[in-house]
């Protein structure tokens, strides 16, 4: 297994190299640059100042040189310095990452609490009202974009329940309850979307397992339906669900961007958005590379977890 992990880690190198190259190239394809952001519609937005600013930021050097220079610093753990914010990229990321992580974890918890029980129920009560209701819910969860659901919660929440605060962020260490109260709404929004997907996975997987011989045997032994489903069937049915959970966890790492904007949560997502608006290249590049690394690691961990749960999977 160790060899497998080491091999996977080595495979990360070309992936991350590709990511660095793509991000570096893509941010430079966005029209406009930091100089316009700083100088605006003024006389100072002239070739001389432009040259001065570009030189100071190192943007006047050949692209390949800029890329190699940035990559070299990155390898030493130096993510660079923001063009605009007077702070290092890594400090900005590290300050915000726990916030996005909390939102992601909270969302996944809600998704599992919604998706797995409803999925099992839907499979067991197949063809009944409950099944249809659950499937309708899942259809809504999958098809309604989360920023839309989020905006509905923000706008109508304020009109119908003016006492509840759905917006903003309070650090957990300052006021844990307020933190959870405010994180709940964006987490619920994300949780509904992913929960709907997990519901489908769980449902189809449980249905499949319920048709297996060993379940029929268990039923024939006269075990209670509860024991048949939760002790015998679910154990096997959950294996594809776990894979789905890990894939969606990886998604959540970068997938909270829009919701952070809707619910005004100062996480990594908002950092990327405002950096894109400002053309703050070091921040965009650094954040995307950081997130890609986290996604790749999550995928690796999930593959290992699946192998541990499912003895049929072998490390090769």
């Amino acid at each position, binding site marked *: 297994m160790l060899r497998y992990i080491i091999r996977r880690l080595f495979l990360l190198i070309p992936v991350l190299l590709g990511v660095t190259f793509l991000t570096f190239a893509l941010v430079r394809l*966005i*029209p*406009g640059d930091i100089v*316009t*952001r*700083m*100088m*605006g*519609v*003024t*006389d*100072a*937005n*002239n070739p001389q*100042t432009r040259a*001065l*600013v570009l030189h*100071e930021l190192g943007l006047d050097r050949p692209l390949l040189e800029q890329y190699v220079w940035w990559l070299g610093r990155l390898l030493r753990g130096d993510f660079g310095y923001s063009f*605009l*914010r*007077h*702070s290092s990229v890594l400090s*900005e990321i590290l300050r*915000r990452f726990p916030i996005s992580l909390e939102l992601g974890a909270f969302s996944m918890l809600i998704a599992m609490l919604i998706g797995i029980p409803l999925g099992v129920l839907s499979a067991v009560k197949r063809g009944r009202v409950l099944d249809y209701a659950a499937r309708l819910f899942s259809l809504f969860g999958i098809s309604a974009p989360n920023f839309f659901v989020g*905006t509905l919660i*923000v*706008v109508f*929440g*304020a*009109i119908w329940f*003016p*006492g*509840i*605060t*759905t*917006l*903003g*962020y309070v650090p957990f260490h300052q006021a844990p309850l307020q933190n959870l109260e405010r994180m709940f709404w964006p987490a619920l929004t994300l949780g509904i979307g992913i929960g709907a997907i997990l519901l489908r996975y769980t449902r189809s997987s449980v249905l499949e397992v319920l048709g297996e011989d060993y379940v029929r045997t268990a039923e024939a032994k006269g075990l209670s339906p509860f024991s048949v489903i939760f002790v015998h069937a679910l154990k096997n049915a959950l294996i594809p669900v776990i894979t789905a959970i890990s894939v969606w966890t990886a998604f959540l790492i970068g997938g909270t961007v829009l919701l952070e*904007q*809707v*619910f*005004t949560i*100062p996480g990594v997502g*908002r*950092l990327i958005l*405002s950096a894109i*608006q*400002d*053309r703050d290249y070091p921040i965009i590049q650094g954040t995307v590379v950081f997130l890609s690394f986290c996604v790749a690691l999550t995928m690796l961990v999930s593959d290992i977890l699946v192998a541990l749960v499912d003895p049929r999977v072998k490390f090769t």
Partner: protein
Amino acid sequence: MPHNRSIVANLAIALLATGLAGIGFQAKAAPHCGAHGGTLTIPFAPDPADLTPGKNAEYAPSLIFDEIYDTLLRRAPDGKFEPDLATSWEYSPDHKTLTLHLRQGVMFHHGREFEAKDVVYTFDRLRDPEFKSPWISQFKSIEKVEAVDKYTVKFALKEPFAPLLSLLATPWYTAIVPYDFTPAHNLNKQASGTGPFMLVEYVPDDHVTLKANPHYWEKGYPCLDGVRFNIVTDPQAQISAFRQGSADMVALEDPKFIPILKRVPDSSMVPPAGPVNESGLAMNTVEGPTADIRVRRALSMGMDREAIIKTVLFGYGQLGTKIPCGEAPYGWCEGKDPPLPYYKYDPEAAKKLLAEAGYAKGLALTMQVSLPLDVQTAEILAEQWKKIGVNLSIQRIADFNTQLDNYIHVKDQTSIVTLVWQPDPHSDVYQIYYSTSGINLGKFKDKDLDALLDAGKVETDIDKRVQIYKKIQTLVADKAYMLYPFTKPYNWLFEKDYVKDYKAVPSGSYAALRYTWLDKKK
């Protein structure tokens, strides 16, 4: 201008003197705080990113550092100037030297007394090419800024420079920073000014918190313990925060939200200040169809400005010009000033002009837009211009910065952007219209216009200067160099009923927060 300069060595007497000088000014704003304490929360957009005065052209950050730093002068609603850090000032007879007498006993947040050296430092920094301030060319007329003594500062000018007082009253341009603190500090983390509030922390994309400056020179103010700007970029979310009670005030730039906000209980609209933001439509005046003055005049007459104001601004706006009515006393005011040429909606006359120009069969134009209000304006314009045979295709540019870039280098397309408030008509029009300006928005080359712009720059007699800028506006409308569909206030503010004595000013500045108090028991 008369002045009474007293050389006071004793700090206590100096403090008393400042206190007295302050009272005269405060009387106009509010007699005294109705109550002390409390923190006022305002949702704010966009994220300021950099709170360093004089460093960025972006306007929004200055609304925050305006609370931390002072300027030498202040602007009254009628456009006159009032003392701030300078108590009096006078020009030499040739108008090439401006002497300012500074307020004594004013303390910086880091504990040192404000003096002439700080003024010299502030202006040397802004004029230093290495600092790369966007305002550097605005200060070209300044030869030298020097400290005569601790409390007197002299501006030596290369030529009379009429906009100077205005620039001195604008924190966006000339917030006074301390010479001993500024170079060594990251002003996003620690700041020191002489303003009513002190920076507590700025957490990017989250909030900026300020606390009252206990040594603020206007004695008895600020009334609040602090101010919190929550960074909330989505207007819907700002409104929800206001409704939920997590914001005490809310400021919105799009009037479509006014009807929604009017329904929020226990709150009301702050009477809006005069209009200062104009939507400006730039055209290429030397190449393509819009090089023909008849085409431009036809476009102007084919534009139903009233209808645009009614639909895009829900009626909360006025006819557009380059220097709007809120920029008193220079602005063109609807109903007060004589009507501008080619402003009357007349599609038949427009069609005739287009036919004369050889476009009887129609004309195709492209227009770039990015901001929501400008997009709506363009869509309505497309409908209106269809009636005069102009087929307008709208190009939506994803973000404002890119559009600005295209706008500055206007090529074959037309472009609409909302232009922001500027402190002086000179800074408002010179760069945009002057033939050699780097951001000349329509490739204008007009000797008469240049002559008027030059005259406006040096004319120090206010009445004569007002006439110059009125002439410029008439000329621009007559030649249809740029079209201005509407002007509007910087924003519309709503406040909860317990927020007292807040006043909106044309620049959108939150300066009145120093006199604002909260009438609620906590």
